């Protein structure tokens, strides 16, 4: 389930992009979970036409996924198939960081690809013909080959992918357990099943791995050039005739126009790597950062999961080749690379002659998260609280108040005060232990629970991001009159206010971008 402020932030984002009606539907789905069309109409109290159009927009913009499920009939009725809709929270929040994705594409692939990518961000889903059409109107050039080439480059880099199926059918669970009939079921068991249903729906909707980044063979004249591209695009090795037979088998969908969308997974992965490298650069040194970025780039293609824990095992030679290609890495030799690998805490696997190293990405992310939380504690509660929190966080187990006070050299009274404050704000977990026997005394045990703490901090960040967005909207609103004036009229006092508005906007938006990095650190990385 999504945290409360996360829901509010997502709703606000949808409202600012797609209007209040869409945001009502979103909020309903986020708060109440997966629903059918009739239920959405009932809960949002909107007209049927409005709900249908909102769902069309939201599905098109990748914020909602539909799936068909079999529902047991009541009292002797035959089971019927109903369509349910689930909210895609992550994709909603991604709307906020679209400029960062655009920056990645722009830096890596250039302006032409950025144009296509921007279209996909704006429209959510587009077919290749729509992309060509749009490019004609926005970029002014009617050269189809340039567009197709840029499109292929985006495909090869895996920044775009095929859209998922609009309504996959989920077969009833094999063990014969019937899914919940009523939405209002409160038992945890049903909650667990619902979780699995949504995951199953996403898995069923996703295009096959082999098809996901495969360019469609729609035009016979294009086939020749595309065959060459296909052998590069497809991740696995295939023979040409196998490819053809696959396409023939999909003849049925040939008539169906393929829609393409932004591949958030790959973009988030890039941001994740960027964050790791900058963290290491700050924590250790530049050289380690260069080695790390080389390793992450090499193992990028073998990362199948969203949040890969370890990179693939890479040989020292491969690492060396990649490192010298990077700027600043030219002067590095094997010894220095080995030293950096040591500093990074890489696991070495020696198989005969080869030395293979793998990096623990998850460990880096967790250290970054811990540091972030500790800095928040330092800022909010002071240095002593910071020491206490660090002690508990490193210990990873229960510590008693007196022991904490002794280890951190803080007065007992202050320790208790600080501990209570942290506990009240959900940063610590407390347990009371009463010893019975000759001497009855109450011991207070304190501990940092990583997982609930992470969620709590994430919720606070969503809250902060929401406040920032509200403030930006408020400032825009306040300066409405000035913004509508043509430039010539902005002189003297008005010009000063105008410039001030600009500065305020830049400060607030930059803060939001920085906060967003922290949000990603806790949620997506």
């Amino acid at each position, binding site marked *: 389930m999504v945290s409360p402020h996360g829901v509010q932030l997502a709703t606000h984002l949808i409202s600012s992009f797609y209007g209040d009606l869409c945001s009502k539907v979103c909020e309903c789905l986020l708060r109440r979970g997966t629903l059918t069309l009739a239920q959405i109409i009932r809960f949002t109290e909107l007209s049927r036409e409005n709900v249908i159009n909102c769902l069309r927009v939201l599905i098109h913009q990748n914020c909602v996924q539909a799936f068909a499920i079999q529902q047991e009939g009541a009292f002797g009725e035959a089971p019927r198939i109903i369509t349910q809709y689930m909210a895609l929270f992550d994709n909603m929040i991604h709307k906020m960081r679209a400029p960062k994705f655009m920056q990645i594409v722009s830096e890596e692939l250039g302006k032409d690809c950025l144009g296509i990518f921007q279209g996909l*961000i704006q429209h959510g889903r587009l077919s290749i013909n729509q992309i060509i059409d749009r490019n004609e109107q926005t970029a002014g050039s009617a050269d189809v080959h340039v567009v197709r080439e840029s499109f292929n480059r985006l495909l090869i880099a895996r920044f775009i992918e095929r859209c998922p199926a609009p309504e996959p059918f989920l077969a009833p669970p094999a063990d014969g357990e019937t899914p919940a009939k009523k939405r209002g079921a409160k038992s945890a068991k049903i909650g667990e099943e619902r979780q699995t249903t949504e995951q199953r729906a996403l898995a069923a909707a996703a295009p096959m791995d082999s098809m996901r980044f495969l360019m469609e063979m729609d035009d016979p004249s294009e086939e020749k050039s595309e065959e060459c591209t296909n052998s590069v695009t497809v991740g696995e090795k295939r023979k040409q005739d196998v490819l053809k037979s696959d396409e023939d088998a999909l003849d049925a969908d040939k008539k169906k126009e393929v829609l393409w969308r932004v591949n958030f997974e790959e973009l988030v992965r890039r941001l994740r790597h960027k964050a790791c490298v900058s963290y290491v650069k700050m924590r250790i040194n530049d050289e380690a950062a260069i080695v790390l970025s080389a390793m992450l780039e090499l193992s990028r293609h073998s990362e199948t999961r969203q949040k890969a824990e370890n990179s693939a095992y890479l040989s020292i030679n491969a690492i060396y080749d990649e490192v010298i290609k990077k700027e600043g890495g030219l002067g590095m030799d094997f010894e220095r690379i080995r030293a950096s690998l040591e500093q990074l805490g890489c696991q070495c696997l020696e198989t005969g002659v080869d030395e293979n190293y793998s990096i623990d990405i998850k460990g880096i992310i967790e250290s970054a998260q811990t540091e972030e939380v500790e800095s928040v504690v330092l800022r909010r509660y002071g240095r002593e609280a910071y020491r206490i929190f660090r002690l508990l966080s490193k210990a990873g187990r229960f510590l008693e108040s007196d022991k904490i006070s002794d280890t951190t050299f803080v007065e007992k009274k202050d320790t208790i005060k600080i501990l209570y404050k942290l506990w009240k704000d959900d940063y610590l977990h407390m347990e009371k232990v009463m010893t019975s026997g000759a001497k009855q005394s109450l011991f207070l045990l304190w501990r940092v629970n990583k997982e609930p703490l992470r969620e709590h901090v994430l919720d606070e960040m969503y809250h902060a991001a929401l406040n920032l967005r509200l403030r930006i909207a408020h400032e825009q609103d306040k300066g409405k009159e000035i913004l509508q004036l043509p430039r010539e009229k902005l002189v003297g006092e008005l010009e000063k206010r105008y410039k001030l508005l600009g500065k305020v906007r830049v400060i607030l938006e930059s803060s939001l971008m920085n906060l967003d990095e922290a949000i990603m650190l806790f949620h997506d990385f």
Partner: protein
Amino acid sequence: MAFRGRGRGRGGFGGGGFRPAKQEPLELFPEIEGLGTAEYSTAQIELIKWSSGLHKYCNSSPYYYEDRSERPEKVDKPDIERYSDRNLHSGKVRPPLWHFIKLDADHVPTELARGEKKQKLVKRVRWNPESDLQKLDLFEKLEQKHQGQEGTEKKENEEEEEDGGNEEDEGEFSDEGDYEQAEYCDDDEDDFNMADDNNDEPFY
């Protein structure tokens, strides 16, 4: 915005206690002590410009869904039209949804799909909301010189708009001249189109 009115009700509550409730003025963003000052840096100004451009596009696109029944058929102009009212009703002309979203059963769930009979081919989908306005500007100028151009403009109107209740679009086409002129005076368009503008200049 949905949240703006939220705090209003909080002002005078609290009655039923020992003292009467004190009416405090509502402060939407109260001052917080010890917050420090934020630094102004233009490191991310390109991102901010992109973000602003995306927002603007979305607000003028059909994806910003509004209730058709709530929109008045005829826009009532107030008696004394203020300068800030000029842009109020003119920005509402949006292309229909199905210009951009494929509503057949292959791409959307069956219960949301639209019937085949309404899927006429669209002659020209407006991907770039400004490109049409530029063409209109040209027409406006030609119209002033040659009266005959009015016929071409009307033909364009009818060609573009299909069924689906687009009468208000035709009616408002003449208003777009006003809108488009004001837009051109506005400085937000500059930053959307020209990337080499002065960094200080805004991107509203």
